[in-house]
């Protein structure tokens, strides 16, 4: 059966490569108090690939994303079971040092959240605190490189001392991406990174995500199916805390194995 289920343009969809597994999640369960929010999620994130997490609101896709850098630790009453292995390390191990984990796994949020500091300080803050670089030329180089990788250099090169909050929404989000890469992570988590942006900024961010996937393993939560189709090599469909289907993006969009996936993609609910 080969049919284009939705009006989704798959021409840009990256071809899924046979990459090694970067993060292996096995039977991840999560409860908020009594609410069973993630039900036995098993999923492998491939190295240097973009994996899109899609599904209707409240399906657990963001919750799952936040498990990967333990941001759920912030919330009281959360219980997680299962294992998330990155190399030899179980990310769910309660003895794991989350500060160290988060230098390996960076995150970009839905709403751009630059700190009320200068553009330079926004980028250099974490690397300096972690002791990755020393103040001076080493730090300057890192800031420049990170901003360049985030495709923001041409716009801010002459005003690194200006406040990060003074940038436009799209620029702010790219600043946040630059801030995340400056810590030298291997994995980037993106929680609906373009949902608060205008279409042009969204396109810029999407191009950026594609570029970054050469050097980083990326997991992106999105409610925009077209966006998933445009940027992600792999797509996982979540529904009511279950992982319904996980496959390469082309397969999910043209030939879903599950009825519910098909319904969602064709817009029967969402």
């Amino acid at each position, binding site marked *: 059966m080969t049919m284009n289920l939705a009006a989704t343009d798959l021409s840009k969809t990256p071809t899924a490569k046979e990459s090694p597994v970067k993060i292996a999640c096995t039977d991840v369960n999560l409860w908020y108090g009594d609410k069973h929010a993630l039900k036995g999620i098993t999923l492998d994130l491939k190295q240097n690939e973009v994996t899109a997490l899609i599904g209707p609101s409240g399906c657990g896709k963001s919750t799952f994303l936040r498990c990967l850098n333990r941001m759920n630790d912030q919330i009281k009453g959360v219980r997680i079971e299962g294992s998330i292995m990155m190399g030899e390390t179980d990310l769910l191990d309660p003895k794991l040092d989350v*500060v160290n984990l988060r230098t390996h796994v960076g995150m970009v949020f839905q709403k751009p959240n630059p700190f009320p500091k200068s553009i330079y300080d926004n980028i250099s803050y974490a690397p300096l605190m972690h002791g*990755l*670089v020393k103040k001076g030329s*080493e730090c300057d*180089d*890192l800031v420049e490189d990170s901003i360049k990788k985030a495709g923001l250099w041409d716009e801010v090169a002459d005003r690194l001392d200006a406040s990060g909050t003074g940038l436009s929404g799209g620029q702010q989000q790219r600043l946040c991406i630059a801030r995340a890469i400056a810590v*030298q992570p291997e994995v980037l988590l993106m929680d609906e990174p373009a949902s608060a942006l205008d279409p042009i900024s969204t396109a810029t961010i999407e191009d950026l995500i594609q570029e970054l996937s050469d050097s980083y393993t990326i997991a992106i939560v999105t409610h925009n199916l077209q966006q998933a189709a445009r940027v992600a090599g792999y797509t996982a469909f979540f529904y009511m805390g279950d992982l319904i289907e996980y496959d390469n993006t082309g397969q999910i969009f043209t030939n879903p194995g599950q009825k519910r996936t098909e319904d969602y993609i064709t817009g029967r609910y969402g």
Partner: protein
Amino acid sequence: MDMTAEMTPERRAELDARVQRKLKKRYRAAKRFHFYCVGSLVLAISFLAFFFTDMISKGHSAFQQAHVQVDVDYAEKNLRFTKRAIAEDMHDIVSRGWLRDLRRVKKENPELVGTKAVAWALADDEVDQYLKGNKDLTGDDNTVEQKALAARIDALKADGKIKMKFNVGFFTNGDSKIPEMSGLWSAMVGSILVMVLTLLFSFPIGVMTAIYLEEFAPDNRLTQLIEININNLAAVPSILFGLLGLAIFINFFGVPRSSALAGGLTLGLMTLPVIIISTRAALRAVPDTIRQAAYGMGCTEWRTVRDHVLPLSMPGILTGTIIGIAQAMGETAPLLIIGMMAYIPEAPEGFLQAATVLPAQIFTWAGMPERAYVERTAAGILVLMSVLILMNASAVLLRKKFERRW
């Protein structure tokens, strides 16, 4: 290290090592900071605990007062020079004030005149303080007379002729220069008079102002001026309200100095911003749908406010008012300026008579040299604090009970 290079296992290891190197120190700093935060809160709350323990330990003894059993000869002639009515060795043990009041026996209990009886007399403050352990009479610094007095007190106590009784006079007497006779009555009456006036003055004006600003006022310069003005008024040091009361109410309008009226007007102005601000918040909490429904039924603006918005916001308004009045009740500085720290032995009977209030009475007693006034000051503070805590608690309860989520 080249920070722009590709990630290799060696580079990763070096980066991890750098993070690890600083990590211990950072966690220590985090712990330290957490400790400072907990410590600050604990410190602030232990100030509170220390304060209350201190006041209770200083003030609780004032609720008891020493009484001494004496033989009284109510002979006619003794009632003029009442010292003769009791044995001479009791003169420095029985209160001067109690002896003075013996004169009233003729009027109040004429059947006692000419008889002899045993009575429990109020003890002198020195005796009282000695028994409570507040004053040393037997130490090396004390005179021979004091030591002898202490011996007599101890003997009387051993005989059961001295007893501690509940200090009724503390609540029923006015101020007095005789410590054991002084009480809070006139200050309590004064506080009630002043608070009634404060309420009468600030509540209607405050609520009306709030209604105008929230429901009627156009958004123009004048309205903005009134708003800024109210916010500033809420933060003006209270002593300046005293200057206003002195210059305007007393010197210009001729309101009698020290009177409850002067106090009520001054504190009324001071309470006004508190009531306005809380009333506005309460009015704002009523959703616009209520107003639109009332307009839809043909209510005019004023009827809408009077019949629908105001009743719904009443709990909030009353909560704010109680808090404002409680604040005014503890206020002293402006009242000093308008003379409300006068010596008032009798409770005032009208709004124009000289009056004093609880905090002013506390201030006056705090300045008295006798040891007995220290415990009375602390006890007065306990009474004032109880009233204030009661008022604030009722405000909180009122808010909880009628709190409505729209």
